[in-house]
């Protein structure tokens, strides 16, 4: 009797010990894809937008393809959290079937690790290249060249973001301002606004990337497109006069035209001065058309103008968001995901999508019924002839953070523009030496 009781204790104890392991394994598994006609559940990771609105859209796809349903997982916490969750899923073999991702170096690690499927066959099958915005396709192709096999395409662009100056019409009209066409005109505008007791620019510098947008624009002005691209690809020396000039201009903006204390302001809090009439504009992307509404603002009170770069053609600081497919997923799941992506990027579906998002990667999306601000933004995005890939997606993370340190130290006045340029170049050289 005593032997039986301790054996029962042993069995219960071992079951208790292994329960968390079993539960984790069971919870992580889902239906495996099978041949066409059999039920497939696609796991989708995303960081953007309301889950229910996305699910309603996916349910429309399921109505057309009853054997395919989508189970989405919304990763809250912003860009850095999403990347870590995605990397952890890939490293642990629990990657999604398809997922939303930024471009450039952010998706680079996913591509170089071999966890993302090349989509060349699907591009040929569905003729996607003709359906998406040209510069967006170029960025996706460049991504493949940098991080994967040259010639391989790893994503389908579904969002195009170009950074611009988003301003308050109330202040704009009150001061009688006009859209600057040159950098000198922009500086003159800033001086006029500041003389009226208002800060031109409000930024949220806590995570550095919002401040970086300003410098990236100034670098386009001082270096021009060709050198700018070479600098972003780490093919040109950052310790150069054009970069020093960009840093000098940046310091001028910090000292004169940006709401003080911005280095620690959260990006989502940075719009407050603009809403309160203390600042004229911010540097953001097309998502502002939705953000104004989410912040309880009337979007018709705001507008935007693209960067006056003093170079032709005028380029914008842009980036894409794309859908990618997991390389380690079953073939049937990959094909189902490709079929869904093809349906999703059709213009009439993108018009539905624009009811809760403010941008697209597809050409010729109907804009009837859209807000004037979104329609204006879409028109501007589609008409861009070229963009440069935003700095924080161009440089790998480690030299990028070397740039962030130099940017912040310069803004705080602890180093000079010359030192900032040198420090960035040193960070790039260190990265190259460690990654030969």
């Amino acid at each position, binding site marked *: 009797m005593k032997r039986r009781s301790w054996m029962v*204790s042993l069995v219960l104890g071992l079951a*208790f010990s292994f329960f968390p392991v079993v539960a984790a394994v069971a919870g992580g598994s889902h239906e495996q894809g099978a041949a066409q006609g059999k039920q497939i559940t696609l796991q989708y990771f995303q960081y953007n937008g309301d889950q229910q609105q996305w699910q309603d859209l996916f349910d429309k796809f399921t109505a057309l393809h009853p054997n395919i349903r989508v189970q989405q997982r919304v990763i809250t916490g912003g860009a850095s959290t999403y990347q870590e969750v995605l990397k952890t899923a890939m490293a642990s073999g629990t990657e999604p079937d398809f997922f939303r991702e930024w471009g450039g170096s952010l998706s680079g690690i996913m591509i170089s690790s071999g966890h993302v499927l090349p989509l060349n066959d699907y591009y040929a099958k569905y003729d996607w290249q003709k359906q998406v915005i040209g510069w967006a396709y170029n960025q996706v192709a460049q991504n493949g060249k940098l991080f994967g096999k040259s010639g391989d395409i790893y994503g389908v662009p579904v969002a195009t973001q170009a950074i611009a100056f988003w301003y308050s019409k109330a202040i704009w009209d009150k001061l009688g301002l006009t859209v600057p066409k040159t950098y000198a005109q922009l500086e003159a505008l800033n001086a006029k606004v500041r003389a009226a007791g208002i800060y031109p620019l409000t930024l949220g510098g806590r995570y550095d990337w919002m401040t970086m947008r300003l410098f990236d624009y100034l670098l386009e002005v001082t270096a021009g497109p060709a050198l700018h691209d070479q600098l972003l690809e780490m093919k040109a020396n950052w310790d150069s006069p054009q970069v020093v000039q960009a840093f000098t201009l940046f310091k001028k903006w910090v000292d004169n035209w940006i709401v003080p204390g911005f280095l620690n302001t959260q990006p989502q809090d940075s719009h407050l001065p603009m809403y309160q009439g203390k600042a004229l504009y911010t540097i953001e992307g097309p998502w502002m058309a939705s953000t104004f509404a989410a912040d309880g603002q009337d979007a018709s009170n705001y507008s935007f103008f693209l960067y006056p770069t003093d170079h032709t053609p005028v380029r914008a600081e842009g980036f894409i968001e794309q859908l990618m497919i997991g390389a380690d997923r079953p073939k049937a799941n990959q094909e189902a995901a490709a079929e869904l992506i093809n349906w999703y990027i059709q213009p009439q579906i993108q018009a539905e999508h624009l009811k809760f998002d403010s941008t697209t990667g597809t050409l010729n999306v109907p804009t009837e019924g859209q807000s004037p601000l979104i329609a204006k933004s879409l028109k501007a995005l589609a008409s861009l002839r070229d963009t440069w890939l935003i700095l924080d997606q161009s440089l790998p993370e480690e030299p990028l953070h070397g740039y962030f340190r130099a940017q912040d130290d310069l803004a705080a006045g602890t180093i000079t523009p010359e030192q900032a340029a040198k420090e960035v170049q040193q960070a790039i050289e260190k990265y190259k030496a460690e990654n030969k």
Partner: protein
Amino acid sequence: MKRRPTQGVSRLTPIWFFLPALVIYVVFIIYPMIDSFLVSLQKWDGVSIRHTWVGLANYVSFFKDTASLHALARTLQWTVGSVVPPTILGLLLAIALNRNLPGKTIFRAVFYLPFVMPLVALGITWSWIFNSDFGALNTLFRGIGLPGLAIEWLSNPKTALWSIVGTNTWYATGFPMVLFLAGLQTIPEELYEAAWMDGARPIRTFWSITIPLLRESLVIVVALLIISSLRAFDLIYVMTWGGPGQSTQVLGVWMYFNTFLFNKAGYGSAIAWSLTIISLALAIPYIQILTREKSST
């Protein structure tokens, strides 16, 4: 004849009872520690299947890398800032609340309350308080006619770290206060009465009676605060993300950046293990002191 209770229970019986806990400990503590150490000996991005063995190269790189040494220096500053003020304030509060004051239980709870709050929520709240534009602190200073004190607390590299130290002091003081209160309960009241009868002033009794007899509590408080300060992450990550520049970059946050942002899981693990070794170097003497004191009594 009655059976003795131990008959029928083999020598293996105790082992069967602690086996489940041991299995959990090995699976969730020991195995990840060993795996983490092995990762620290490799060059690995944390995602790829490819791993490259590099031996102690990550540890050597740590002591050659300017940014890492900078983070180490910030960590030492942070450690001083997160040990000294809470210890001193905690001791003073414990002495004050060890008396028969009306409502002392409520006061003890109030001062201890921040310590049980989640650090992330605290960090977010205090970063709003410190906001130079709309924060409560600067609004107060401007309101009482002291605009010169309304500075950029978290945006200025000179004040950012010490602003977070202030937040941490507010958060952590309750913990040493409780430990010191427990220690003060063990000091016989007769010692203070005898000293008073001999004409000793409060300052004299504090240094000659209270401090020596609180030695054990002091060792525990200081050692535990040092160990927890070396692991600092939440508050700094939430309040400043290691910035501006690198002015608040401590090793806990630097380890996270290298592992998850720079895709240098091997180097990040080496930083984590370096922190562990430093913590052990401080914890072992503390345990030895305690053990020596107990065995001598």
